[in-house]
């Protein structure tokens, strides 16, 4: 307990100096509303449900897009490692699309699917798929030859080997790719909602900012930032569990 306190003390110092700077009006209170006001605004928005409903629709978009990206991306990556023909056909496309800043696709997904959930889900799916694909590919490619050989000599079918040997050894890199995708999902979600949306965190931030209710805007910004952080931490705990067998 004491150890954790000392570790996170710098964050408390930052929070305290924020409150102090704002209360002493060293900067204008529109630019930096006091932390206590921001917390009060957050409680209000939780109470009237505004934050909860918008948050739910944001998390729904991110969740569906990310789930699709993980399923399709993992299949594609393992397919690339397992069948040379798939690799030859897909690898050049991956190489071209990987460096593309995925946020550039925001207007296109809007052209295709409009302003609602569909365009955000498509964007998150497209943006998050490639890191998963690359993780699965690199992991599956590096599965130990000796394991593959011994599985084969013991008469395992190709499908059995894929399931029992290649997939487990691809796991660490695959899970790492999914972690990148998780972070990307939040980035793409917020940027697409900031640009064009009728609900969601990004919409709420833009709406409150335009209204000049900056304490509420700060509250939403920090909520999103915290959710991104918490998702990463929870995911890492999950990964640690998943990979216990390796130690």
């Amino acid at each position: 307990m004491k150890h954790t306190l000392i570790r996170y003390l710098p964050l408390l110092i930052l929070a305290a100096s924020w409150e102090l700077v704002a209360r002493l009006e060293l900067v204008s209170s529109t630019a930096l509303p006091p932390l206590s006001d921001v917390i009060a605004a957050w409680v209000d928005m939780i109470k009237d449900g505004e934050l909860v409903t918008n948050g739910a629709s944001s998390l729904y978009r991110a969740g569906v897009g990310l789930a699709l990206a993980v399923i399709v991306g993992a299949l594609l990556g393992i397919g690339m490692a397992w069948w040379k023909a798939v690799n030859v056909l897909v690898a050049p496309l991956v190489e071209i699309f990987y460096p593309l800043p995925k946020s550039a696709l925001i207007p296109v997904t809007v052209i295709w699917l409009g302003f609602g959930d569909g365009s955000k889900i498509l964007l998150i799916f497209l943006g998050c798929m490639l890191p998963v694909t690359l993780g699965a590919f690199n992991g599956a490619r590096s599965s130990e030859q000796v394991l593959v050989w011994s599985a084969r000599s013991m008469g395992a079918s190709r499908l059995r080997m894929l399931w029992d040997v290649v997939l487990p050894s691809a796991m660490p890199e695959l899970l790492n790719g999914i972690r990148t995708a998780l972070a990307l999902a939040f980035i793409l979600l917020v940027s697409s909602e900031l640009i064009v949306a009728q609900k969601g965190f990004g919409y709420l931030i833009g709406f409150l900012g335009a209204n000049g209710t900056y304490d509420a805007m700060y509250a939403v910004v920090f909520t999103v930032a915290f959710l991104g952080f918490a998702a990463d931490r929870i995911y890492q705990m999950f990964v640690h569990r998943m990979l216990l067998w390796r130690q």
Partner: protein
Amino acid sequence: MAAIDQTPMIPPALRVLRSTLWAGARIVSIVALLATWELVARSGIVTPFQLPALSNVLARIWSDAYSGDLAINTAVTLYRAMAGFFIAAVGGIVLGMAMSRSHVARWFFDPIISVGFPMPKIAFLPVVILWLGVFDISKITMIVFDAIFPVVAATVIAIQGVERELIWSARNMGARERDLLWQIILPAALPTIMTGLQVALPLSLIVAVVTEMLMGGYGLGGAMMTASRFANSTGVFAGIVEIAVVGYALVKAMALIRRRLLSWHQEAEADSYRHV
């Protein structure tokens, strides 16, 4: 690769033919993709608004290039991305070194970095706009804010990973602290630091494009958003192609620099094996 390589059984001439065929096959999917794009757009299954023909998009890029807009927008976007990237690179390496060498710096910045790294920093954009306006300075600030985290994290990990024996033997041979830093620690840490920079560079471009899309003005992202507002989907697709080309060139350039800088390192050798 899981499949066993059986090439040694085949005569050399056939092997050459085979590898050329595989290399040729690599272009097939790209050509197929472009051809499908053109055909689907021309077939009338989709409206030109949903998918403008590739030829029209190329014509639009050509006219952008001819009028000079393309050069200006690319230059502006690259300027912002590179300015942000360099500030993040220098600042990140310095901060990472400070955290490795001073306990106080480590104690103060470690929780900030580990909490800040996984946060979607783009959510802070409206706050940065509120403070700094919508011009270059706030765009570059956003880029630095996003790109500095991978650099700091990589630098700290890199310096931790430098072999103790290297440092001990350098000390033994009478190296001063300054020489130790410049001649032993930094070179030994360089591969991992470069990996951090290779994450930060595409990130810089992503953030440059997003901030331009959100704040408007010149730049590839801004031009694309303007086209989108006027429902000019040819302009939108042209923007994607232009941004894709810039992104591809940046990533390739970074990989090239890495190979140059690390040609003395064993990883360069391993790398050349992988690309055979």
